[in-house]
Structure formats: C-alpha cells, structure tokens
C-alpha cells in the first residue's frame, strides 16, 4: 500500500535528520576539547545523506520512490584553530594550543536546518496518517 510506504519514507527522513542533529550536538559539545582518543584536538564531524530506495513497493511507477539514509559520517579536515595559551598543558613549544575546527555558528545553523527538515517530515507523516484512517472508514 503506497500510503504505508509514504510513512516509511518519512520515517527514514526523521531518522536521518535526528542523526544529523546528534552529530551537530557532538560538535557543539566539543568546541573546546583538546584531547581525544585519537590524540590531538577534536575534529568536526559531518553527515553525508544519500537516497535509499524503496523501489519494489512502488512497482507501477517507473523511477521508484526514495527515502534517505546517512551513508557516512565524515571528519572535517579543516585546520585547527591555534590560540596562544602558554600556560595550557597541551601548548606546543611556541605556546600555542590547537583547538577544534568547530564553528558554533555553523553548527547552530545546521541544528536549526535539521529541526526544520524533521518538522517537515512530521507534517507529511501526520497528513498520511489522516489519509489512512479515512481510508479505513470508507463504506461505514
């Protein structure tokens, strides 16, 4: 039933946007982290979205219908921010400390965008739910 597939597609969007918000939160939480398991300062993470096909359920129409999934979580290789803090235990010989390459402004914009996209998927889901319940009432 195509309406159930529509719900599954929206659900995949909710999952992907939630993961994106989680990654943005991780970045925001680690804006000042200078020590990580890999060594050195924290590197900003980013999600990569790709389409996920639910083709077989949309057999009558060519092209299929696509949900979304997080294909990869990549590490941002932009240079670290260097601050002059000679008293810091992680300072190098010249007195500079490498701080994460996270820009809080960028992460906030990312979070807001993820929240809006999440809401759009929820709105679609609610309308589809109404459509399904009306379908069940045909002939009553």
């Amino acid at each position, binding site marked *: 039933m195509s309406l159930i597939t529509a719900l599954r597609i*929206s659900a995949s969007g909710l999952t992907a946007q939630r993961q994106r918000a989680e990654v943005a939160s991780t970045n925001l939480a680690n804006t000042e982290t200078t020590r990580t398991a890999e060594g050195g300062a924290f590197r900003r993470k980013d999600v990569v979205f790709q389409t996920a096909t639910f083709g077989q359920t949309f057999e009558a*129409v060519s092209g299929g219908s696509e949900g979304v999934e997080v294909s990869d979580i990549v590490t941002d290789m932009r240079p670290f921010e260097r601050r002059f803090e000679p008293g810091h235990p992680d300072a190098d010989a010249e007195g500079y400390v490498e701080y994460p390459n996270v820009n809080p402004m960028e992460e906030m914009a990312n979070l807001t965008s993820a929240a809006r996209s999440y809401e759009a998927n929820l709105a679609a889901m609610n309308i589809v739910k109404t459509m399904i319940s009306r379908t069940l009432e045909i002939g009553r």
Partner: protein
Amino acid sequence: MINVHDKMFPAVENMLDWTAKRQQTISANLTNIDTPGYKAKDVSFAEHMQSLGLDKTSAAHFGYSDTSSMRIYEVGTTAEKPNGNTVDLDREMTELSKNGLQYIALVQFLNQKIRTLRSVINDGGKV
C-alpha cells in the same frame, strides 16, 4: 439512474490511487530535502488520464482504467541549490496539504455514493 456497477466507483478508486502515490512522492521529496543531487519528483496526471481506456459520454469527462500508466517526472524548477538539490520546501508543503485534502474529499464523495446506494437498497421497497 443509480447503478451498483456505477462507473464512478472505479474512477474514484483510480483517483484515490493516484493521490496516494502522489503523497508518497511528496513525502520522498520532503525526506530528501537535504540530499545532495536529489531532483524533486511528481506523478503525472494529465498523461495518465489521456492514456486511460475512456468510456465517456463527453470529451470533457474523465474515464478510468488501471494505474500502470502513471509516470514519475522531475519537477522543473529554478530553485536549484548549490548541491544540486531541487526540492522547494514551500511547493512541497503546499502540495502536501492540497493532496491530503483532495484525498479526504474523494473519500467523502465515495462514502456519500455508498450511502445513497444503501438508502435505495434499504428503503426503496417501502411505501
């Protein structure tokens, strides 16, 4: 004249099917609003109706048939984002509401039709 085998039933059924498939496509567009390179899609209507084996009394009327002639096409848009994505949030939200309401209207129409038939069956013989 009212007929249990009214041609209206398969026609409405077909419209419901098309509307449901379209809802699926709109949901997919909204879901892929942040996917790089994704192109917004829609399900054709006019072409679908033209291709149906029509059984109609006027050239202006719609007919009915199977739904295998539905076709997905890419929505032409000028709002392509730098990452190649063409989903327009405002368009999709508008179509989402319109399509949902159209579905509910069709269901109500169908219910009314069934009520009329039931009334004829139950009360037709009474004096």
